[in-house]
């Protein structure tokens, strides 16, 4: 088999560049310009001093989950299991129960999200047919000292929640992001 040889031309550098010293000076002038600029004005420093200064999250930032509630304060979720099915991390645990109100078929007796296992992909929100779960709380998952404190149950999730303006029963009028 013939060997193909690719000839890569040597970079053509003038004696000025090859003699190294002028180029070092050029590099030094750039770094020292930056050094003095930042030493005296801090103009280019991009660091955010985190706990004291917080960065504004973008509008569509996926934060901690929250469960929305109906006008009467009950949980909106109908325990359809769409979110837990869609969840790639398998971290939503729902136990469905029958509701006394006949117009409501089911409701989640238990609704737990393991926030440590969650990969914050947002699939659960996509999957939910009735705007019951959202990730728009703007709170990032904080560190936990104990693993079991990372399990967010229904009351905890509802506490972050709010009333949803969407019509229960499939009418998506008024839901954010839907036209």
């Amino acid at each position, binding site marked *: 088999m013939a060997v193909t040889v690719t000839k890569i031309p040597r970079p053509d550098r003038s004696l000025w560049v090859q003699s190294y010293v002028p180029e070092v000076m050029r*590099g*030094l002038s750039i*770094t020292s310009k*930056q*050094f003095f600029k*930042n*030493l005296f004005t801090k103009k*280019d420093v991009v660091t955010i001093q985190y706990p004291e200064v917080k960065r504004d999250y973008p509008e569509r930032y996926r934060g901690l989950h929250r469960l929305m509630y109906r006008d009467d304060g009950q949980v909106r979720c109908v325990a359809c299991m769409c979110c837990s099915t869609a969840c790639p991390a398998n971290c939503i645990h729902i136990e469905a129960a029958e509701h006394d109100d006949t117009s409501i078929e089911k409701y989640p007796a238990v609704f737990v999200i393991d926030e440590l296992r969650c990969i914050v992909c947002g699939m659960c929100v996509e999957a939910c047919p009735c705007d019951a779960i959202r990730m728009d709380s703007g709170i990032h998952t904080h560190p936990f000292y104990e693993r079991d404190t990372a399990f967010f149950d229904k009351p905890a999730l509802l506490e972050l929640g709010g009333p949803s303006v969407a019509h229960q029963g499939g009418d998506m009028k008024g839901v954010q992001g839907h036209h």
Partner: protein
Amino acid sequence: MLTDILLILLKIVAVVLLFAMPIGSLMTLLGDRKQSSMIQNRVGPNRARLSIIPGLGRLPLVGIPHFLADGLKMIFKEDAIPDGADRTWHNIVPAMALFPAIVMWAVIPFHDHYCTGEIVVQNYRDICVEGQTRNFFSIANLDAGLLYVFAISGVSVYGAAIAGWASNAKYSLIGGLRSSAQMISYEVSMALSVAGAILIYGTLNLNEMVVQQGHLIGGWLPMWGIVVQPLAFFIFLGAMMAETKRAPFDMPEGESEIVAGYFTEFSSMKFAVIQLSEYVATVFVGALIATIFLGGWQVPYLYGDGFHFGNTPTAALELPYWAVIALRIGAFSFKTIFILWLQFMLRWTLPRFRYDQVMNLGWKIFLPLSLANLVITAFVVAIL
């Protein structure tokens, strides 16, 4: 006799504990971390706080608390010695690394000899009349000062080489070997590059060299080493940086290749001492270059009794002797720190060399250049 000994002890304490060591160890923080952060648009370390001292609790203090925390951490860390290492040498080696870095300071003049009498300025020199000169501002005024420096810096390679060998580890051994090879290569061009300066000054005494740099060429241009030997300055700076294993010549440490080179297997205070010795050596490079090439303690136009503009017997602006001394020591410190700053700047500007490039640069570029520099200087000195 006793006062002499006391004086020497005092000078050693002043130079080592008040100048070399504090600057050297502060550089681990300010030079390496803060300076790099400024160049890279970061803020650098500032989270450690001295909350035990009231009033300082919430101030970052340019990160100095980090440096104290580092020291504390080093002291309390476990001193791990690898299996199969030579325990004796492993324990001695940090001292062997630190010792040359410190004793080199013995010959650095911080100021001219103190004059007890009247100072008369003649031909750009302070001449002491009706009094004696006392050596207050350098630990030892050796006539072979520069040779002493070269001798000691030659010894400093033992620390690295033995550290590498005593650790019983591959990376350490490679680091040790590299550092010996690198030091030998650069020692040659280092000595040869400065030989031109020796020819011009006609002395090896560092203080005398500085005195001669007070000369003004044509009555206005200070005869600093960098003016009369510009090429030698660059070669010497490069060779000295290679000698002290600073990046871009950090082959013996080579973090991206051989972990930490010859001190991979050192921990706790032993590691700190080796690290410190490198920084002290770096500060020493600053002091030595300032002495040979940047006029040492000379302030341009400033002589023993004040500012002289041109070769005049009386000062144009008279200053008391103590003010002159303070100005000159300040100038020397400033020059030292400037060269130090430059070294760190180079470290954060240039990418590392490959090992063969380091050798090429040393043997094929620095050596011929310094030889040529020496020959040309010799001719010029012979003709003038």
